[in-house]
């Protein structure tokens, strides 16, 4: 009967932990603030609460004597949170970079089923039909604002590794591109001149690949091109080199065809009309989407993979950290067994003891979480990296350690602290007073 009761208690405890984890993951930060305030009020206003405060203070004052073992909790949790935040920052940064590359008032048209610009091809006639379709905004001279573009891939060495080859995207764009992508700003040099073999380079590309400074020449398709400017756009386009469509097409022998047409819509609502008119045209077989949808879709798979890997690695590390915390806190309780028993003997109840041990662990965990998240923020916020994107070429992106991510890290830390502290806390409360007092 006794063992059955014990078993039942164990099951109940596990259920409580599971429930806690579910509620905890869904809780927004406001909820946690409310919880913290409630706890503070309870500790100030009620007798039990004040007792808890006293016991916690005693516990915390002895932490300095257990510096070695307490640091196990702190460092363990800092490791978990640091790795988790860094991995999620990578996934978040990649998604954000690509999402920022598109918006809802420009649309991109590709040949049907192409998935990425590199695979697509549109002949000149089709491109013209697309540009003349209803819903496309007209410029001052009554011409539609649209850019027929080509993306080719060139081999350039990565910075600091002259023998390496990276696939760098080169985009041929039309004159209208400046009206179409208003976020693109020239930060050094000037725009390329149509018809010449001139290129402007994205800030990200310049940072990652060798020899892209303004004024330098590079060899593309056996010809010499001059870098005349550097642009900034804070999105995936920054990974690219831009030149005039005609010049790029002639260098790569593409004739008059383009790969994609990007158009400025009259308004986001005009997309449906634009799409419908292209779908109804028997001469065309194209895919139309807003640039926002197009770029978001490109980031989907990698973002998801990175998230899954980050969370899996985080979970396994968290399991290790929980057991580290358990070890530390059981040892701490054992060291303080007589002290706790004395408190119980002079009338302190179980709740203050349980809450104080939990509180102590969670404070240590919070400290660890803050250190881990802080280190991840210091090292990885705005850290530049690049990977192979949908166009078979490099996409340069920045890690983003935002407040939401830091908060996720702290939440993980507190959850680990809670589980790691709960069992030792219960043990402390259940300690038979007489045996503990007799123990030397």
């Amino acid at each position: 009967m006794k063992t059955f009761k014990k078993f039942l208690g164990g099951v109940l405890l596990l259920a409580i932990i599971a429930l806690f984890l579910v509620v905890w993951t869904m809780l927004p930060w406001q909820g946690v603030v409310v919880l913290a305030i409630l706890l503070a009020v309870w500790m100030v206003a009620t007798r039990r609460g004040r007792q808890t405060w006293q016991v916690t203070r005693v516990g915390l004052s002895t932490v300095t004597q257990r510096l070695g073992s307490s640091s196990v909790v702190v460092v363990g949790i800092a490791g978990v949170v640091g790795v988790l935040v860094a991995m999620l920052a990578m996934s978040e940064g990649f998604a954000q970079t690509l999402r920022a590359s598109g918006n809802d008032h420009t649309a991109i048209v590709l040949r049907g089923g192409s998935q990425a610009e590199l695979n697509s091809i549109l002949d000149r006639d089709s491109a013209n039909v697309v540009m003349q379709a209803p819903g496309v905004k007209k410029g001052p001279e009554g011409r539609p604002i649209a850019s027929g573009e080509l993306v080719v891939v060139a081999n350039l060495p990565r910075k600091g590794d002259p023998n390496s080859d990276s696939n760098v995207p080169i985009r041929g764009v039309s004159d209208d591109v400046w009206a179409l992508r208003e976020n693109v700003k020239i930060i050094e040099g000037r725009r390329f001149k149509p018809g010449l073999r001139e290129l402007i380079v994205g800030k990200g590309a310049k940072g990652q690949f060798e020899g892209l400074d303004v004024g330098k020449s590079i060899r593309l398709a056996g010809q010499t091109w001059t870098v005349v400017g550097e642009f900034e756009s804070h999105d995936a386009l920054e990974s690219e080199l831009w030149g005039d469509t005609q010049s790029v097409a002639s260098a790569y022998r593409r004739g008059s065809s383009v790969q994609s047409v990007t158009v400025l819509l009259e308004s986001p609502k005009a997309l449906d009309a634009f799409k419908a008119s292209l779908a109804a045209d028997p001469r065309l077989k194209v895919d139309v989407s807003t640039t926002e949808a197009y770029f978001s879709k490109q980031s989907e798979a990698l973002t998801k993979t990175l998230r899954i890997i980050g969370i899996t690695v985080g979970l396994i590390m968290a399991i290790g950290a929980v057991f580290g915390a358990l070890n530390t806190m059981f040892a701490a309780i054992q060291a303080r067994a007589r002290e706790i028993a004395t408190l119980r003997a002079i009338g302190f109840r179980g709740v203050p003891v349980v809450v104080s041990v939990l509180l102590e662990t969670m404070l240590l965990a919070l400290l660890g979480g803050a250190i881990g998240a802080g280190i991840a923020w210091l090292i990885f916020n705005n850290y530049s990296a690049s990977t192979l994107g949908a166009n078979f070429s490099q996409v340069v992106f920045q890690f983003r350690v935002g407040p939401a991510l830091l908060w996720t890290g702290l939440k993980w830390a507190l959850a680990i602290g809670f589980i790691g502290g709960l069992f030792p806390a219960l043990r402390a409360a259940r300690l038979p007073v007489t045996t503990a007092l007799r123990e030397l």
Partner: protein
Amino acid sequence: MKYFHLIWAALFRRKARTFFTLVSILAAFLLFGMLDATRSAFDSGDNVIGVDRLITTSRYSIIQSLPVSLGNQIKAVPGVRDVGASNWFGGIYQDPKNFVLSFAVSDNYFDIFHEIQISPEERKTYASTRTGAIVGEALAKRFGWKVGDKIPLQSTIFPQRNGDKTWPFDIVAIYKVAPGAANGTDQQFFFHHKYFEDANAFQSIGTTVGWYVIRLNSANDADRVAKAVDALSANSDHETKTQTEQAFNASFAKQIGDIGLIVSAIMGAVFFTLILLTGNTMAQAVRERTSELAVLKTIGFSSHSVLYMVLAESILLLVIGGVLGLGLAGVIVPIVAKGSGGMLNLPPVGSQTWLLGFVLMVVIGAIVGALPALRAMRLNIVDALAGR
């Protein structure tokens, strides 16, 4: 070894603490096993079969194709045993998510990539089937394909003459891969370059190939032949870059990202934490046993035996946890690979991972045990027994 039971008893003196520490070690080595598998999935470095192969691509860009005429010129270069051609097809099966690594290849491709094992009869059927396709075992399993199946593959790049982007194929063989081949070789899909040329809407495809693969008479010739091949097209509009298959694969993997660096950074954080954690456990264990160790010394154990015993204890702790963790990784990794439906192509935890893991266990165990062991060795019997 005669002290083994003593070490064992000391280790499980406090079962709860040892158990908790073991779980932490287990988690660390589980992670090590899984991450190392991920790393080697991107790293085809120990591909021994491909040492005598070169890959010739356009110097300027992976997307630029090379003229057909170059093939015969390469073949005439001394030291070249055979030249094959390959072209990227960019196939997807049914859904854009189901990407298929598919290539249109010349007929001698399978002589050059001899790790692709197909019987002479299958070769014959392939030769006589215009739309014949040879499919890797893992790929066939992923989509449930069998020999004789007629399957449609959509190309993201190439439409057929009639504008249709869906190409029909007949699976004539499912190949196994010889041991020592590059990772992921059993995930590929090959078909006739002839079919690709004839049915392609892009007429110019008939005069170009994507890249050449070269098999050498001897791997030692690689440098010389690579230079000679590149010299063929120097200063033309299709300059080439020829490199060994390994170098080609390595530079490709590098483009995805420095997986090795990410993995080592994570493992660095994990093992640093682990050292601290187990170090703390060992320090506690030795502190608790001060008087016992003093007794051991009193009855004649030398200071050095005490040192070795404590060191052995900490290494044993790491090895037990580590072996369990790597063993668990060995069970989980294939499950994950299977669960991802062939998307994640993780190799099983190999002997190299085990070896490295084992070295790590012993080294970390020694680091962790060093301080407590020194403390135990320097123990003054009188002080320890007196509880000072």
